[in-house]
């Protein structure tokens, strides 16, 4: 065993890679070498540390100091001052009080419990955190018991719709079929959502363990991770993790003598928004054009290659190992009634600390923005938050204290969606925002059904006119009417969900629209 007096965790994700983190890491290694510190100080690559807009950052243990915005020139100073002489380079230290994702002592982290703390490319580190204990436990019990545990835990799908996971499994688990599939939806196409990317980059083995347990529970011997092509780092880390799991015999044939076989494969998507819809995703996975299928039959009965298929989101499945390990009752302690557990949010826009946080279900929007997002930046006032991505709702000031969970938000015709929270300050233009949302839907409509294809065209024309100052007062109600029609008649969730942003923007900010129309 090698003893290191200090550990440096460098946050490696897509953003920091583009910012040249590898070059900095090399410089750091060379500099440590120069001062003969290389055997005393361990450099590790980990997933994103949870900060955004702070350039290249690293976390130093045991001091638990985070350096941000590090440039190559700073490395010399950090090594000479901090690692050689023990003097912290204050000018590079992240000053904001650390909370949420950044607070590594916070015990409420389930999905992100290891992110930014372990080396995601080393299976031994995951094992060291108690990893794959739940998988061992799962193999010793009956699959139907696992379905019951997950049902009792109240886990709900984290992809947006919030369907109870245990219930979904219970449709597929008892079916007799020569082949069943588990598909992980890692397409994450919702604008502003990047939670799944950071989960996979930071702790790929936890996702794999969740897949193993879930596949065993429903009797699927093949699992696919359908992932966006842009997520290069996730793909390479997942591939590495699958290799390691195979080598350790955690997946493969007759796993630990249980008689259960499992193979996990990665399928790469091409970035169409509609492919986040489960039936379109299955079509795309089969090699067809990504358009949704008619339901029923539901994928749980007839999905990929006409076999029973369960499609779950990354975050949902990542919750499963902890539920099995600690029991359903433990999981029920988190969150609120009828909506247990935690939720990972991506907070961005006009906040001081854009980034990622994992909080209990039912935490208010105000808490998330102020405590985890650091509040609205530059001392400006809060105007609105777009919650749930493009297919989300505009929440005004008066709804800041609404508890965020699947049930409660429904009362305000809002949704939690994928957990994206885009904060806008008083200077933001809601019309502009809605224009971008509709433009996005117009671009992403797959064209299979006419209410969506045509509806989006008309809506875009209307909002474009209003934006140019050529709109009429009646246009507002017309837009809501069209969106309502689309909600009733569109083939899949893509067209159906446009009602939420359109209606919430116009209802909550009608004055803004009227002012623009008057001008």
């Amino acid at each position, binding site marked *: 065993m090698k003893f290191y007096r200090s550990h440096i965790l460098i946050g490696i994700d897509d953003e920091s890679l583009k910012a040249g983190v590898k070059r900095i890491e090399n410089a750091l290694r060379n500099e440590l070498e120069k001062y003969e510190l290389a055997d005393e100080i361990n450099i590790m690559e980990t997933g994103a540390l949870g900060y955004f807009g702070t350039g290249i950052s690293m976390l130093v243990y*045991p001091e638990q100091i985070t350096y941000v915005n590090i440039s190559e020139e700073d490395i010399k100073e950090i090594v000479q001052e901090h690692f050689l002489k023990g003097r912290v380079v204050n000018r590079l230290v992240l000053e904001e009080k650390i909370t949420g994702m950044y607070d590594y002592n916070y015990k409420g982290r389930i999905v992100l419990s290891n992110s930014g703390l372990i080396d995601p490319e080393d299976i031994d580190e995951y094992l060291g955190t108690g990893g794959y204990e739940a998988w061992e436990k799962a193999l010793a019990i009956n699959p139907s018991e696992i379905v019951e545990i997950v049902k009792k835990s109240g886990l709900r799908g984290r992809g947006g719709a919030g369907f109870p996971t245990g219930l979904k499994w219970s449709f597929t688990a008892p079916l007799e079929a020569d082949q069943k599939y588990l598909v992980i939806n890692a397409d994450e196409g919702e604008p502003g959502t990047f939670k799944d990317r950071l989960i996979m980059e930071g702790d790929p083995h936890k996702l794999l363990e969740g897949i193993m347990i879930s596949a065993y529970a429903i009797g699927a011997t093949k699992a696919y991770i359908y992932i966006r092509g842009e997520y290069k780092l996730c793909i390479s880390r997942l591939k590495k993790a699958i290799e390691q799991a195979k080598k350790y*015999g955690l997946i493969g044939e007759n796993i630990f003598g249980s008689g259960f076989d499992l193979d996990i494969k990665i399928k790469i998507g091409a970035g169409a928004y509609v492919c986040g819809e489960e039936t379109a995703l299955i079509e795309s996975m089969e090699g067809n054009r990504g358009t949704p299928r008619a339901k029923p039959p539901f994928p749980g009965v007839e999905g990929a290659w006409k076999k029973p298929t369960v499609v779950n989101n990354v975050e949902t499945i990542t919750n499963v190992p902890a539920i099995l390990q600690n029991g359903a009752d433990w999981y029920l302690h988190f969150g609120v009634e009828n909506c247990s557990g935690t939720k990972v949010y991506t907070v961005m826009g006009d906040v001081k600390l854009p980034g990622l946080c994992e909080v209990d279900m039912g935490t208010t929007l105000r808490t998330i923005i102020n405590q985890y997002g650091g509040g609205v930046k530059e001392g400006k006032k809060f105007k609105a938050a777009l919650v749930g991505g493009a297919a989300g709702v505009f929440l005004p000031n008066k709804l800041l204290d609404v508890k965020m969970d699947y049930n409660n938000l429904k009362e305000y015709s809002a949704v939690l969606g994928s957990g994206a929270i885009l904060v806008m300050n008083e200077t933001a233009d809601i019309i502009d925002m809605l224009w971008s949302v509709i433009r996005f839907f117009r671009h992403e409509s797959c064209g299979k059904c006419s209410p969506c294809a045509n509806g989006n065209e008309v809506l875009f024309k209307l909002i474009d006119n209003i934006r140019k100052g050529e709109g009429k007062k009646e246009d507002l109600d017309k837009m809501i009417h069209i969106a309502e029609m689309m909600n009733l008649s569109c083939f899949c969730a893509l067209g159906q969900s446009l009602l939420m942003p359109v209606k919430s923007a116009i209802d909550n900010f009608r004055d803004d629209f009227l002012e623009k129309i008057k001008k």
Partner: protein
Amino acid sequence: MKTLEELRKIREKAQNEMKMRNSESRVKVVVGMGTSGIALGARDVMKAILDEVSNRKLTDVLVTQTGEKGLSSMEPVVDVIEKGKPKITYGNVTPENARKIVVEHIVNGKVVSDLVVATKND
């Protein structure tokens, strides 16, 4: 392919190694690394301590460094801090003495009194 028994062993080993990243340790050893400390061999003292801690597989010891402490004439200076006990400061530490401090003080719990230059109650 590994058996479940082998997996458990890997898990235990990794757990021990990761413990060292935790800032809650039984003993904290702080080496003074100011300019004069380094000039008088604090680096070699640090290396000796790390080597000894590593060889003895002490997972509950934290070794860190600090800047000039104002005891230039007694450099290299090493502090040993244990919870609930007075802070012991050793002066004029050589690599050999450093090893002695690890063995006698940290492992066996006996202060090496002839090297102590100061003690301080929290």
